[in-house]
């Protein structure tokens, strides 16, 4: 394969590599002599970070690709934009050698492994098919923030303050919101979204007309999920999140009434309560009653499910003196300001009571996500958002498609302390995304070879991003901008019809051969 001469760039900075001179020379000798494909270019400088100029001037003749052996962590030296222009990102393989010799156990016996790893990467890269124009500069310079709530407004304002042209699309009118390079489109409902990251086009309808605006990236801020946890501003009622009840102490102050609510939202919005963790709620009520934290301790809940294990807890709490009040949707509990009591109509007794509650303990949760908002936006790929956003490790605001960030969405009751920082992290990620200025097409993308597909539907069933579809001529087709480059379809295809760019079978095969090969 012409045009696949690979050079290995390795700095001999002793500080990070921890190798002695004699080891380093042994390693460089093995690198030069061993691999068939690579010719090693050794950079004599303490560290790659300082030696950018030397490498660039050497403008590595005769090589198309480079393997950069790093002793410290690749992230530390930032994007490798210092390499000569003719090398686009897909032609550089950064090999993190530090994972082989951790700081504490720097030992020269690892030299053989370093050589083998660099050779494997070089062999693999030699077989790589580079994507020609991997960098796609953004067509638009602005960010669209969609959401009709003040958190969306804050997000748009902070983006604008960072010098990014932000457009806020919100259903409700947003009076008095104006800032430098912030455009407000209120009273508009989104109709659809097209395009790829960096070149999105959002259709929306405003005052009956259908318009379209461009955006490089999109931030969806849904207020619906975040509970307005705070009761009316001026009431003397103190709110303690159930999660922090363990380390709550009245501090000697006389507490007349302590009310445990199933969901704080019921005080403010009409939304039905999210079922709390009954276990923690009842445990808390029981402990409160046990050490007399207040004269009158009550649990105010809508659907009292005393079933199974909980039955015991309900009974124990009742024995310890906790009063249970059940309300229904028509007679929701309300905080009356004067003497910090909650007035609620008890379903069982049938008359309305005034419960003393100068301290309210309630779980502060978000509401599981609502598909309606996502479907109305017809996001470019119809991911099943619920399964994508499972679990906090999934990254607070990440979505499968670059350039689209979501705040306030969760496949589960997300506690407020997770939901809050989501917005700041989303804003930070967007500004980083915008600074890049170009959308780096994912290194790996699946491509189907003409005529080899036997239409067995397995890739369509397997693709986690629904990027594989069946076209009209009953053959499989992969939508490039939805493909996340995971390669699962490549492995399940029975006719080997799909190949993963930049991670092709010969490329992996070469790496396997190189890593099991005996280097002289």
């Amino acid at each position, binding site marked *: 394969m012409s045009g696949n001469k690979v050079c290995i760039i390795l700095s001999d900075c002793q500080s990070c590599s921890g190798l002695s001179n004699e080891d380093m020379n042994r390693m460089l000798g093995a690198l030069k002599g061993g691999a068939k494909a690579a010719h090693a270019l050794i950079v004599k400088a303490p560290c790659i970070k300082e030696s950018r100029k030397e490498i660039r001037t050497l403008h590595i003749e005769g090589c198309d690709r480079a393997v950069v052996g790093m002793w410290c962590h690749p992230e530390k030296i930032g994007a490798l934009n210092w390499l000569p222009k003719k090398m686009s990102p897909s032609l550089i393989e950064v090999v993190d050698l530090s994972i082989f010799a951790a700081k504490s156990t720097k030992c020269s016996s690892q030299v053989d492994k370093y050589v083998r790893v660099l050779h494997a990467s070089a062999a693999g890269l030699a077989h790589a098919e580079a994507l020609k124009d991997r960098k796609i500069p953004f067509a638009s310079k602005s960010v669209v923030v969609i959401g009709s709530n003040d958190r969306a407004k804050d997000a748009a304002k902070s983006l604008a303050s960072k010098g990014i042209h932000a457009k806020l699309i919100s259903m409700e009118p947003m009076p008095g919101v104006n800032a430098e390079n912030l455009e407000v489109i209120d009273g508009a409902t989104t109709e659809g979204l097209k395009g790829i990251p960096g070149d999105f086009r959002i259709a929306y309808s405003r005052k009956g007309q259908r318009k379209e605006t461009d955006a490089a990236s999109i931030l969806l801020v849904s207020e619906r999920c975040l509970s307005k946890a705070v009761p009316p501003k001026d009431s003397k009622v103190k709110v303690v999140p159930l999660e922090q009840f363990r380390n709550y102490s009245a501090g000697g102050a006389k507490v007349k009434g302590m009310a445990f609510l199933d969901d704080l939202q019921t005080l403010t919005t009409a939304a039905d309560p999210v079922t709390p963790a009954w276990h923690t709620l009842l445990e808390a009520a029981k402990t409160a009653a046990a050490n007399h934290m207040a004269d009158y301790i009550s649990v105010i809940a809508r659907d009292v499910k005393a079933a199974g294990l909980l039955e015991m807890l309900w009974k124990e709490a009742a024995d310890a003196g906790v009063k249970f009040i059940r309300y229904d949707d028509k007679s929701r509990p309300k905080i009356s300001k004067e003497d910090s009591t909650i007035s609620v109509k008890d379903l069982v007794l049938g008359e309305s009571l005034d419960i003393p509650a100068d301290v309210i303990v309630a779980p502060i949760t978000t509401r599981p996500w609502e598909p309606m908002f996502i479907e109305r936006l017809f996001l470019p790929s119809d991911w099943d958002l619920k399964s994508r956003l499972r679990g906090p490790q999934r990254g607070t605001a990440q979505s499968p498609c670059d350039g689209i960030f979501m705040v306030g969405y969760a496949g589960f009751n997300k506690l407020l302390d997770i939901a809050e920082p989501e917005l700041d992290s989303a804003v930070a990620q967007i500004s980083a995304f915008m600074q890049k200025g170009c959308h780096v097409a994912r290194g790996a993308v699946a491509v189907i070879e003409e005529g080899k597909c036997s239409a067995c539907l397995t890739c369509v069933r397997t693709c986690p991003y629904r990027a594989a579809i069946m076209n009209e001529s009953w053959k499989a087709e992969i939508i490039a901008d939805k493909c996340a480059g*995971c390669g699962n379809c490549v492995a399940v295809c029975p006719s080997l019809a799909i190949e993963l760019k930049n991670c092709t079978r010969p490329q*992996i095969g070469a790496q396997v051969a190189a890593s099991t090969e005996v280097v002289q």
Partner: protein
Amino acid sequence: MSDKLKIVAFVCENHAMSAIRAASIAGESLPESVRIIEIPCTGRLETPQMLEAIGGGADGVAVIGCLEENCYHDIGSMLARGRVNRIKDILKDISMEPERVEMINAASVSGAMLMMKLRQFESRVASLPVLSLKGAIQ
């Protein structure tokens, strides 16, 4: 040098690789005999590649992927485990030790646990009889 143990590790670039990085930051290093091949997702791995690794002289093959219920690409490590089990059946069928191939799941935070599992795997492979392959696979 060639008599030393050789273990090829197919590592998924998402959670598994970050687990290895987390371990190396914490000061632990990869076991001596492990060679890493980074792939976009363990679901990318195909059975012939694992067989060629063993045929090429690797004493053991470790496939390190994300936790099954939290895989970055949703189904990658489940498919990988299926393929590793298929390779185990083939190895047992041609009277080679199925323990040579192993699927290890790691969360991006459990670097130390992953290193411990890799060391255990390395000792298990070391205890197996030496792989006597007459000619390397053509």
